[in-house]
């Protein structure tokens, strides 16, 4: 192995405990006080250019009545917070919020639990099986969402879906001509399975990577002290993997809360209200009802709710980010 890799390997074999050793300010070595600002400038410029004005514009839109007529004339009518009060008094809106929260909680839990279990499985396997399973997970991760939805759509197709045939064959029930989306619960089961299926590989591989970092001495010490595997996992492994879990849970919440493509494409671009999540509700209000002001307000409320929901995890992430 080249010396570069062994040096890096040495670097990461340091204990993974949060480091409290003071770092010598590298800044003074590199000399320039302006250096950090210059370094983050390009990234900030891109983000600012693409999102800055649009966010401001969306904020303005949310305070206006902006239908197709106004869109063509490029001029909206100011109505203050009427859009927001309309949303908050709309029963459908609250159903959509509740549904989005329920879906996010379910999807994130399933993803994290199954992903961690798969990671533990990977850690226990022999090298050949591990390579096979890892390769499988990577194939799944590599599939573009549009492709994955197309395949799942075909698998649960009303006329020719293989899932229907298989379930009937295994005598789980009669799924011939089964309409997966007629019943809201079964429809959501398909959507959740699709989302979780696509999300597991990333979580499993990241957690597995973390597991390989857990120092064997600690595990052995705990085992010789008489701890069961579960206790070892709970008291030794989990605390060490906490930073990974925090990131993964935060990202999963953020991503699953905003799920759009899977639902949209599975339901052929015309999901009925029972399948609305907040991002779909915002999109259809804007584009199908041509109520751009109202749609913008919904989107902003969605961001606010997401911030509240993920607040605890985000704060942890910022703390981790700041601590180094």
């Amino acid at each position: 192995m080249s010396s570069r890799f062994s040096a890096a390997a040495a670097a990461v074999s340091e204990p993974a405990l949060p480091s409290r050793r003071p770092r010598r300010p590298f800044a003074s070595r590199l000399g320039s006080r302006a250096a950090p600002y210059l370094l983050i400038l390009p990234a900030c410029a891109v983000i600012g250019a693409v999102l800055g004005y649009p966010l401001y514009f969306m904020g303005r839109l949310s305070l206006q009545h902006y239908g197709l007529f106004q869109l063509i004339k490029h001029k909206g009518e100011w109505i203050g917070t009427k859009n927001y009060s309309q949303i908050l008094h709309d029963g459908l809106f609250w159903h959509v919020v509740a549904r989005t929260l329920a879906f996010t909680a379910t999807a994130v839990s399933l993803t994290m639990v199954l992903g961690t279990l798969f990671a533990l499985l990977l850690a226990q396997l022999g090298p050949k099986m591990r390579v096979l399973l890892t390769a499988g997970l990577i194939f799944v991760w590599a599939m573009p969402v549009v492709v994955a939805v197309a395949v799942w759509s075909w698998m649960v197709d009303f006329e020719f879906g293989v899932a229907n045939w298989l379930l009937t064959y295994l005598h789980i029930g009669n799924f011939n001509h089964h309409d997966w989306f007629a019943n809201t619960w079964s429809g959501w089961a398909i959507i959740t399975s699709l989302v979780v299926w696509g999300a597991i590989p990333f979580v499993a591989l990241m957690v597995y990577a973390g597991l390989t970092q857990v120092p064997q001495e600690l595990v052995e010490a705990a085992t010789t002290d008489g701890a069961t595997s579960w206790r070892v996992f709970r008291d030794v492994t989990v605390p060490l993997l906490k930073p990974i879990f925090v990131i993964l849970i935060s990202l999963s919440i953020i991503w699953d809360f905003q799920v759009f493509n899977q639902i949209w494409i599975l339901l052929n671009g015309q999901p009925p209200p029972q399948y609305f999540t907040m991002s779909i509700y915002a999109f259809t209000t804007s584009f199908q009802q041509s109520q751009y002001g109202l749609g913008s307000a919904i989107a902003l409320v969605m961001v606010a709710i997401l911030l509240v929901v993920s607040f605890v995890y985000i704060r942890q992430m910022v703390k981790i980010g700041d601590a180094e």
Partner: protein
Amino acid sequence: MRTRRARRIVLNAVALLVFAVMVFPVYWMVSTAFKPGSDIFANTPVWFPYHPTLGNFGDAVHRPHFWADVKNSLIIVSVVVAMSLVLAFLAALALAKFRFYGRRAFIVLIIAVQMIPLNALIIPIYLVLSKAHQVDKLSGVIVTYLTFVLPFTIWTLRGFLLGVPRDLEEASQVDGTTRFGAFLRILLPLIGPGLVATSIFAFIQAWNEYIMAYVLLHDPSKQTLTVWLASFTGDRGTAWGPLMAGATLTALPVVIFFVAVQRKIAFGLTAGAVRG
């Protein structure tokens, strides 16, 4: 000894089951792509393409603008990956190595950016890009994609940079003007795996994206492969055989990219992950 073997067998069986269940949709896509129409629409599923045909692939490839769209997707993705690596590396360097006023704000910014539903911003983003004459241009799409790829890549690269041991940093403190150059020369190879991991993430995000691409790009010869794929579910119903063939072709570059860098991945994920 017995229990060890039994345990091994059980674990392997479980692993095989997990593998089969997870990979089945991928297998189904590929096998459908090779099946003729009569097998695809058979009343009993045909599990293996016993009469493989390249007809579906031929149909897919001969659809209008296929090769143009392949080129577009490859251009967009390569530029997004390259630029995000550069920009994210610089920003991650700042976060990892410097204490500066506004650092916390920057961290909050890159986390907050990920929470914004891009779909809601379609029209405002369209307006901004239109003013800059970037609509119906690949560069407009590239810049938009960068925005939602950067946060995660910055965060991950920051983690990798933190993993570089201090003695190596200090070893690079050669005097004079070669300071930063030497620093880079030592640093870059060490975080190589990190760069690979983030480039895979950027690749997948850019390759996957659908809605912004179809709104921002009008000319069919400028569209991306994912939008091209959506054209299969046309108004005349879905041509499943060619669609699965097209889907396989669309998934292929990502898989190739993975295989090409797969050794570095495992190492990369290992090296950087724990640094949170």
